[in-house]
């Protein structure tokens, strides 16, 4: 159909526009004036237009179930709900790559419109570097993963979308995550450009801060959505598995968080030029690295839906090329140090600098845990897996000083801050937090010391910010409300995770219909089974009564779904949430017997993990809004 052709030729045209842009940028670069040639604007717009057109052609092909396209045939089905046809566009390798390019080009277009105040050469070079990225990915998509590839003869029906991907949270997870990932591309391009024209300064930091914030907010939300999905859909009740695919999204987040803070220091104090540039490069390299690891099929993971070495090699070479390019530029045009790089020990920037190093440590730990198994296998063929014990062991102890330094440096002032003024307040908060932790350790004896210290340091942070928040409403002092909300969210996140993982209860049992069993203070009755038919799946629903000691009954209906295209069985957990805890039941049939495998879990503070993540992102959002006004 027409959309296939339209999409494909739009991509070809956008390659042409890319090449023309290089030519015009070269021409315009040596003309001394303050305005970018109108041709560059028009071709940027044309490129943006053709790429978006191509993306929507693919969307329409999916909506109309045009099975003459291989990507639609392999990942869709005519009987699927409209929403999942739509999200099926990026639920596969080819489509998600096109989405990646669409975001690349949208960010360039937005940058062009929003950077009118910046120097001409800097803007031109940013467009130049961003276009290298766009061109690279355009060649990649056309060479190795054309979403508009034709099938002859045209199949009557598609193969369907993997049912575990048919889920609202996961449907919007890729676009949100990609805005975060790809948002870092414009930071990368602009930092290379600003090094060359010697523009790494306060003004530059002010102008890229918005891009850092946007990517950071979307990356935070994207990771959260993926995590929520894992929690209820994968049926294990965990929300973070330290799976390589999760790690590759966490690594850019850590780098981006460090970058966000160092950009703020650069904007305020005009120090940390090189460091900020290095972090910009690292962030984008890690986003690319994420794409490489996921797309190459190197990882043994359920997320890996592509398995073609050609693709991996292309992305890897492109990644190496970009890294070399940035290294060369960095060594030739390394930002000149202005002013004194040594600053006062008791100041906000010192606290941020130390925590920046902590974040780099966390990042290295995750990076090594992720790639070490791959390297080991390449070197001596040994198969290993690095799981939660490694990460818990290596990350948890360092979170304690990290949280304490965070608490103190949020309270500090720039340049020079006398700790004496804050001493009383901090001491009061410290005693308060200590009292709280002693209470916990009194009631629950078996908690180990590291976990207690995590409780202590996160409560210290939470109380401290709570007090600032309170002071703000009594109008006693001016505060940065966006900063308070994000850091409060982080404290709450660590606290909730600690509570949830320390006090969770979990039990697996095999039950037959009609049986009941005592679990902790509850009695679980397996009443009966019922059947239901939906548009694209049949489900077997288990009816359970969970009776509390005081006679209160909870009704649970976990499901087993049998999807018909493709034929796959999934378990749908049933979760009862309140502000204190989640009760979670998932069931599974045991093949060839009357038993059903039931997993019951009680997860305290689960909802607060999601609320905390939302608060972290909300702080960033607020910071953008407050800045605009």
């Amino acid at each position, binding site marked *: 159909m027409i959309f296939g052709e339209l999409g494909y030729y739009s991509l070809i045209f956008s390659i042409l526009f890319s090449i023309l842009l290089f030519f015009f940028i070269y021409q315009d670069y040596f003309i001394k004036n303050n305005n970018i040639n109108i041709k560059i604007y028009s071709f940027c717009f044309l490129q943006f237009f053709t790429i978006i057109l191509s993306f929507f052609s693919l969307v329409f092909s999916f909506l109309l179930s045009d099975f003459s396209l291989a990507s639609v045939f392999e990942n869709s089905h005519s009987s699927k709900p409209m929403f999942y046809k739509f999200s099926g566009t990026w639920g596969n390798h080819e489509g998600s790559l096109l989405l990646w390019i669409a975001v690349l080009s949208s960010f360039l277009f937005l940058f062009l419109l929003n950077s009118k105040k910046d120097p001409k050469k800097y803007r031109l070079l940013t467009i130049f570097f961003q276009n290298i990225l766009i061109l690279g990915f355009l060649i990649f998509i056309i060479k190795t993963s054309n979403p508009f590839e034709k099938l002859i003869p045209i199949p009557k029906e598609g193969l369907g979308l993997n049912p575990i991907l048919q889920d609202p949270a996961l449907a919007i997870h890729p676009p949100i995550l990609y805005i975060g990932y790809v948002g870092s591309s414009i930071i990368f391009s602009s930092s290379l450009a600003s090094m060359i024209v010697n523009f790494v300064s306060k003004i530059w930091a002010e102008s890229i801060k918005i891009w850092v914030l946007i990517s950071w907010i979307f990356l935070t939300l994207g990771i959260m959505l993926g995590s929520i999905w894992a929690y209820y859909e994968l*049926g*294990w009740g965990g929300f973070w598995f330290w799976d390589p695919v999760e790690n590759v999204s966490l690594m850019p987040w850590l780098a981006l968080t460090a970058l966000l803070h160092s950009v703020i220091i650069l904007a305020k104090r005009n120090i940390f030029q090189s460091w900020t540039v290095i972090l910009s490069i690292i962030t984008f390299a890690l986003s690319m690295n994420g794409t490489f690891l996921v797309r190459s099929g190197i990882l*043994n993971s359920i997320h890996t839906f592509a398995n073609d070495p050609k693709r991996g090699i292309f992305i890897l070479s492109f990644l190496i090329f970009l890294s070399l390019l940035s290294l060369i530029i960095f060594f030739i045009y390394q930002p000149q140090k202005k002013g004194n790089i040594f600053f006062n020990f008791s100041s906000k920037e010192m606290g941020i600098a130390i925590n920046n190093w902590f974040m780099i*440590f966390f990042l290295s730990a995750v990076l090594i845990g992720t790639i070490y198994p791959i390297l080991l296998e390449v070197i001596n063929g040994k198969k290993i897996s690095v799981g939660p014990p490694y990460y818990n062991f290596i990350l948890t102890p360092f979170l304690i000083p990290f949280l304490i330094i965070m608490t103190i440096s949020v309270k500090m002032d720039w340049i020079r801050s006398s700790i004496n003024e804050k001493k009383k307040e901090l001491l009061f908060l410290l005693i308060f937090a200590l009292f709280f932790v002693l209470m916990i350790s009194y009631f629950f004896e078996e908690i180990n010391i590291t976990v207690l210290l995590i409780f202590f340091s996160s409560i210290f942070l939470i109380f401290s910010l709570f007090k600032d928040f309170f002071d703000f409403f009594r109008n006693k002092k001016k505060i940065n409300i966006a900063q308070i909300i994000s850091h409060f969210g982080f404290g709450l996140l660590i606290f909730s995770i600690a509570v949830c993982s320390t006090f969770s209860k979990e039990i697996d049992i095999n039950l037959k219909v009609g049986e009941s069993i005592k679990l902790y203070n509850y009695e679980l009755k397996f009443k009966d089974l019922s059947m239901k038919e939906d548009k694209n799946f049949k489900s077997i629903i288990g009816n359970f009564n969970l009776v509390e000691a005081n006679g209160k009954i909870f009704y649970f209906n976990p499901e087993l779904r049998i999807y018909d295209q493709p034929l796959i069985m999934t378990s749908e957990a049933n979760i009862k949430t309140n502000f204190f805890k989640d009760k979670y039941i998932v069931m599974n049939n*045991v093949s060839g017997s009357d038993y059903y495998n039931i997993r019951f879990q009680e997860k305290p503070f689960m909802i607060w993990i999601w609320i905390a993540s939302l608060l972290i992102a909300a702080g960033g959002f607020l910071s953008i809004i407050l800045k605009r006004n």
Partner: protein
Amino acid sequence: MLGKKVRSRAIFIFLVLTSLILTAYILFKSLEENVVYFLSPTEIYEKQEIHFDKKIRIGGMVKKNTIKHSAESINFIITDFKNEIYVIYSGSIPNLFAEEKGVVAEGFLKDKNYFLADKILAKHDENYMPPEVNEALMKESKQ
């Protein structure tokens, strides 16, 4: 004497280097202690020294007609068509756990033929086989 600036810079570089070395040491030390090795039944059979206190993963096929259920646990045999291992497991089973399908079990060896699993790894696609299993099977079938 060295200038103040030079000295403080030297201290700075020294600190950075020491912390780098320390970091690398901590990372690799904890990595060494916390990784889980993946083995096939034949590799276990041929292995000279076995650590019974170290967690490992075993991969292979679930042998036909060997799954037995009780209220508390599931027993089955993992095979790579040369050697086999008897597995006892209590816990939740992934949807696609079935006879003559690939499986990865994590837990502790009691002896060379007897494995106490505490986790059966999730697989969500009928055709999906963990690369580890695929490779172990390929390797065994070649020999």
